[in-house]
């Protein structure tokens, strides 16, 4: 199947969607107080970045963007497993998911 390269206008549209999704994740990261939702918001930011990367890869017609997204997925999976393990550990100590309970870590 012939594949035309993407026009710059379409690239801008996809970049805008990625930017909006990243910022939504950022706002959620700053405002939510549930530890699990905080990590869910980092995944949301990963999504926005992945859309950006794939749009650029499509725009330049090469596979670097997709390969990069694969590694982003790997890091996201590793981060999710470690972070959820930490969340379970923290939950066992204070039996709450409130991030404000761990305020003393601020120093």
């Amino acid at each position, binding site marked *: 199947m012939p594949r035309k390269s993407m026009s710059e206008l379409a690239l801008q549209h996809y970049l805008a969607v990625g930017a909006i999704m990243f910022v939504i994740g950022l706002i959620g990261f700053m405002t939510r107080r549930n530890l699990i939702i905080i990590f869910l*918001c980092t995944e949301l930011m990963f999504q926005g970045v992945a859309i950006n990367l794939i749009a650029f890869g499509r725009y330049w017609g090469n596979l670097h963007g*997709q390969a990069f997204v694969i590694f982003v997925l790997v890091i996201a999976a590793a981060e999710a497993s470690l972070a959820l393990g930490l969340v*379970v*550990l923290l939950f066992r100590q204070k*039996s709450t998911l409130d991030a404000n309970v761990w305020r003393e870590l601020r120093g």
Partner: protein
Amino acid sequence: MIGLISYALGVAVAAPRTGGLVSAGLLLVLSLAGAVGMILLLPGGRDTPLRKIGGAVLLALLLVLAALLGKTAAGVGFYFWIFSAIALVGAVRVITHTKPVYSALYFVLTVMASAGLFVLMWAEFMAAALVLIYAGAILVTYVFVIMLASEAHEGGAGGTGAETDLDHDAVSREPILASAAGFALLGVLLFVIFDKPSFSRAADSMSARSASAKVAPDISPANQPVMQGGTQQLGAYLFDHQVINLELAGLILTIAMVGAIVIARRGVWRSGEALREMGETLVAPATPIDDNPHSIPVVGTDNPRQKAYPET
């Protein structure tokens, strides 16, 4: 606040068209209104009508932005609008819903819509991987942990605590500051994306980009015209050019798995003598003491070293 908005409106009217898709002043107004809508929408222990107003404001802003971009619709199809609308609305619901399980499910919706966007960008393998890994593996883990770490509601007056939200889910932290910072960043990002004159000028003449691409051609094999499926190409690219990175990715996953097991295990840290003390009491009756098969005790003796059968 009113003064700021009127000033922004004045800027928007007076802003010279710099050739971008959306002018800077308009972006400023949109970002300000978006921040106000987000502040209203974020859970703050308030009553629902205000949150509904905030949601309506955000939805209207999304429509306005789509209309602004859609008047120069070129290269994106009908499905782009559908998928991106679903993804963004789902993302907003992720960060504004007061129940964690619903947030996770809305995130699944966002992931599915993003996979649709990936398919539109000819990244079929990445779309499949996104659905499998994110919606299949990571989100299931999240939902598991949400279930596992479900907290006991502290009584309350009614006693039926299942319907009330917990305090740290229902009240967000610093919504005004976070919305201001986030939408300031969004405004700047959109300004950079849209207001670049070279972008839109080149978009007017499609041949300009292909001409400039001919000047500096990318001679990597990945840039050759695509003949097979994209997945085949991607696999060939990964194993031709990114072998070490692939191995490193596998290593990182292994280390993360080991680390997650070590972190989440119960009772890992004990001193040596405590372990030795526990060894006397914690050995199950049928545990072999050493490699000698005769050391396996018979059920019914207290001392595992005492053999309950005659020596042969």
